[in-house]
């Protein structure tokens, strides 16, 4: 079993894992970071989205070994202590979640969307979140949340 080392939420980790271990499995099972979810087996739901070197990635499409040496951020790593990330705060303020299962992936996707695009229109946000499925909210309040956060993040 090869050793995989990376930085996860600012901490260096190093573990022996089987070659075929997915990054999402490594996070959930090896590191116990269960905030990243698994909602499908065809890389289409987005429940598993995290950031790898600052870019949003579906962690079910990547092997743990491919993230060797990378800087990984999960939903557990975006708040600053007790202070929520503006995107987290916006989801709370705008009722952007119901069952919460899609939420971590949705928030991680939305953060990258806002950080890499200025002046997002409603349609840009809807298209930007096309890779994340939510069955509960009808997306209405998710879009509102992202608009709200974009303003606060200076997007």
């Amino acid at each position, binding site marked *: 079993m090869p050793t995989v080392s990376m930085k996860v939420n600012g901490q260096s980790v190093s573990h022996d894992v089987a070659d075929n271990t997915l990054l999402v499995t490594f996070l959930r099972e090896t590191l116990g970071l269960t905030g990243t979810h698994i909602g499908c087996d065809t890389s289409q739901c987005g429940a598993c989205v995290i950031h790898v070197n600052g870019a949003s990635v579906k962690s079910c499409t990547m092997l743990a070994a491919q993230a060797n040496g990378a800087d990984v951020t999960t939903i557990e790593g975006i708040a600053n202590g007790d202070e929520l990330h503006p995107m987290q705060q916006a989801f709370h303020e705008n*009722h952007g979640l119901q069952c919460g299962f899609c939420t971590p992936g949705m928030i991680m996707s939305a953060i990258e969307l806002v950080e890499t695009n200025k002046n997002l229109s409603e349609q840009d946000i809807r298209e930007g979140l096309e890779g994340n499925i*939510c069955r509960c909210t009808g997306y209405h309040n998710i879009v509102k949340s992202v608009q709200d956060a974009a303003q606060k993040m200076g997007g």
Partner: protein
Amino acid sequence: MPEGIAEGIGASVRRKEDRKFITGRGRYTDDINRAGQLHAFFVRSDVAHAKIKSVDIKKAAAMDGVAAVYTGQDIADDGVGGLICGWVVPNRDGSATHEPPHPILAKDKVRYVGDHVAMVVADSLATAQAAAELVNVTYETLPAVVDLASAATAAEIHDGMANNTYFDWELGDEAATADAFSKAKHVVSATLRNNRLIPNAVEPRAAVAEYDHIADSYVLHSTTQNPHLLRLVICAFVLNIPESKMQIVAPDVGGGFGSKIYLYAEEACCTWAAKKLRRPIKWTADRTQAFLSDAHGRDHINKVQMALDDNNKIIGLRVDTLANLGGYLSAFAVVTPTYLHGTLLSGCYAIPAIYTNVKGMATTTAPVDAYRGAGRPEATFLLERMMNIAAAEIGMDPAEFRRINFIPKDAFPYQTAVALQYDIGDYEAPLDRALEMIDYKGFESRRAEAAKRGKYRGIGLSSYIEACGIAPSAVVGALGGRVGLYESAVVRVDPTGTVSVFTGAHSHGQGHDTTFAQIVADKLGIPLANVEIVHGDTNRIPFGMGTYGSRSLAVGGTAISKAVDKVIEKGKIIAAHMLEAADSDMEFKDGKFAVAGTDKEKSFGEIALSAYVPHNFPHDRLEPGLEETAFYDPLNFTYPSGTHIAEVEIDPATGVVTLVDWACCDDFGNLINPMIVEGQVHGGIAQGVGQALLENAHYDENGQLLTASYMDYCMPRADNFPSLQVDYTVTACTHNDLGVKGCGEAGAIASPPALINAVVDALSPLGVTDMTMPASPEKVWRAIQNAQTKAAE
């Protein structure tokens, strides 16, 4: 609500439960791991219909890391019971619903692709999955039965069940209905198809089963919507375990929509095997398994006839329905197309004579059961399509045609021709408001403007009613239900005045932690932060029925309200004793027990303390402590109603339907938390739009599910929607303390016909009169081509 506290009833309080979810600290079943746990993987049938000739497990069992491989024979040898049906109906001829056995592992026959044949348990999921590949099942294949219309004459699926018919049920007065048709000026007929859906909660089903051989007891963590119901079924019918030895925990659950109501084979197998192996066993569905084996939804063929008199009033309705229930009867498969469907056929309209016949059919497809709305979306779809078809035939505006047929607001309580008595409603108010919100009057100019851009624009409405707040137990029992449908609550006041509420309802996205706490905080005049809601653990909560059928607030919330009332009553007696006043002089207001007309008072906290430190306490009349239980059994269903209006644009070049506007106005009675209600409406609309435009479960003629992944089953995504306009009117429910009706299913019930009506309206200039769901680009494009070819001929 005490002045200054903006967190009581009616306030859009931000949710208490959010923080754990937005920080990744939710705890779902698959997040749970136990020391020494094994992993289960199920061998599933890859054929739709076959006799099992043999199951060879030798190679799999010999694989390194495999703890056991179990087959249907092992289950049968152990005397394990099958899955049960929770509600049956009488047949027209007086005989009973046919309830074929539904073993948790198939032994003799498989009846759908995905049926459970063997269970492999191993020290890792990868090993269990690899070993499952080595299980060799030989089948003698039988003809698949897929087509609903011809199922009755197809190969027999269950031994001795004639015509593949589970039941053949009727409701209403057939003779009176025939009479109405004989007098009709117009008769409008249509055959409508309600497409099959797969629920797709984003969290797949999962279970972690543990057995303690010293205590001879079990703990099952499950993604269920109703832990006590699950416990009752698994203990009493399947595994024969004393209920007191079984703890069921539904931790955070990632959406349900009905699909997580029922006990499924997998969790029963894991629990059974946990005892056999004396090791915790974990199972989590992947999405493919979810598609194959979660109970599906809808799937009806409805033949509908509507009779109108000279004044365009509906005088009769006849509906003959075939409901596809799949290879086995799921727990609430029978009630969904019957008492949750046939009883809703009057809709918002005064229809004097209605008759319906429903045949519940077996096919070799996955079991079909309640999915968001459960029976009521199917009823609403056929009725609201008929309203538009009839309006078009008589040349009347669809909104006006609805209006003249509405039950007038002074006609309540209104007894329908199909058993229900609506307590209250005002259907014109939400219709008018929704018409105004979408600017109905201005539509034709928008249509003309779109036409200039080469687009077909259409508008469609749907005025719905639903029966929810499920349900009065006596009624349910009389109609064949095998459960009661009350709800329970314990309100426990702590010595320091904080409150814990234990509810039998279950939250899997509905926001109970907040809404329920608002009710308690409001009634007791205490801060919301002082109220904790506990749900989802049979060892902590009172016996409760769980969450489905938009029942949590109307039934569960009322139980909480009643338990709080008991706390207040007891508090008054304690306060009267302490203040040396008569009980009858005590008032409770703004968190204070006061002697009426004086300034003598005790705060809620003081009374709580003296209930637990009872030094000065009416011991002759009361026991110490401040904890009350209430079980609330509703007196009637509740009847939310409203109008939803969709506006679409169709690109003739591609057939793509774009939803450009949505306006709805619902009457849910009083609102506790409008923000949460609005979220429920949005989510319901999205599921209905999914049904009408995108989603479809498709089996090929061999019974293979062709739509078993997100690549083939089209889920609604953010870019399928415009911003949604939502508003409310209020007629308060007359028979519960809170005046609430429930809101969870309304959107999914109302929206599909609104959308299809809009699509048909858009294409009506071409002469198109119908469109089946989903209105996919291909179908719409073909409809346009056909219409244009016809016009050219």
